[in-house]
């Protein structure tokens, strides 16, 4: 947040030159950090610490005395100081001195022998930690990259939408065609139905007329045959039949 304010502060002079000044910009011209905010990225840790000689005295001291006394200066100074302290008994030799000497000697021996390997072990632990964090970072980056690729692919799909729309249009056209033909067929059936009805009505009328006429003619004929005419007709039919029988008798003989 402060970095944003500092950025706005550096942008403020350029904005002041412009005529427009919003209230937020006026607020941001109050600069309360003179340097650039140094949040990220952090500078990496230095490889090695400051150089130290004999494990006790920093290198800067030796460099400080080098112009005046050369290389052996600080060592001579150290020896002189030690002899002075011993002779004037500023450093008193007590029984503790001997235990100190043996302990320090042992420490120096152990450090000289195993220092490097312990350093390597610690370095390996550090490296493992860093590798773990790096893995997390890489996994995160990969995740984001995959998400970006997915987004791009989906964006590319947008260009192919027209296929979908074409298929939909075709489907709709086919459906329209089908309904049109269905309705056409229905119209045809209905019309045929009506016409069939008229035809069957006509047929029925004609048949009825025919039957009625036949019945009427029969009835008239039957009525016109009186009783006497019936007797005469029957006698004539019998006489004809006798004649025919005689004829028939005669013919098979021949």
């Amino acid at each position, binding site marked *: 947040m402060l970095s944003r304010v500092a950025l706005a502060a550096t942008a403020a002079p350029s904005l002041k030159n412009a005529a427009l000044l919003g209230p937020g910009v006026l607020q941001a011209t109050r600069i309360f950090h003179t340097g650039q905010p140094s949040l990220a990225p952090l500078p990496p*840790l*230095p*490889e*090695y*610490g400051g150089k*130290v000689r004999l494990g006790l005295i920093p290198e800067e001291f030796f460099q400080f005395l080098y112009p005046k006394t050369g290389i052996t200066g600080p060592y001579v100074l150290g020896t002189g100081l030690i002899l002075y302290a011993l002779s*004037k*008994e500023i*450093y*008193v030799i007590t029984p503790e001195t001997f235990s100190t000497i043996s302990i320090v000697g042992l420490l120096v021996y152990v450090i000289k022998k195993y220092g490097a390997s312990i350093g390597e072990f610690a370095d390996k632990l550090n490296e493992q930690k860093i590798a773990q964090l790096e893995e997390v970072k890489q996994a995160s980056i990969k995740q984001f990259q995959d998400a970006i690729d997915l987004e791009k692919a989906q964006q590319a799909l947008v260009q192919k939408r027209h296929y979908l729309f074409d298929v939909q249009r075709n489907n709709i056209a086919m459906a329209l065609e089908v309904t049109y033909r269905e309705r056409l067929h229905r119209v045809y059936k209905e019309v045929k139905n009506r016409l069939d009805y008229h035809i069957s009505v006509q047929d029925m009328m004609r048949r009825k007329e025919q039957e009625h006429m036949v019945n009427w003619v029969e009835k008239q004929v039957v009525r016109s045959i009186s009783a006497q005419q019936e007797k005469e007709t029957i006698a004539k039919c019998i006489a004809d039949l006798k004649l025919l029988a005689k004829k028939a008798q005669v013919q098979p003989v021949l």
Partner: protein
Amino acid sequence: MASVVPVKEKKLMDVKVGELPSWILMRDFTPNGILGAFQRGYHRYYNKYINVKKGNISGVSMVLAAYVLFSYCLSYKELKHEQLRKYH
């Protein structure tokens, strides 16, 4: 003799011997200032010798040696009685 840069903002190594009293008096002796001085000193030492990738034993041993010297100075009064000779 006034130097070109005001004496207030020089580091200790650049201050000349004659200006030393004024430089010392210039320093900030409020509790906040003293605390700040201790913090600065600690962070300088820490970032130079301990907060590195391949650290040395010297980062720790210098502190221990300073402690040894300091405690020797504190107990010199009692040690004076164990001197082997009276006159040096």
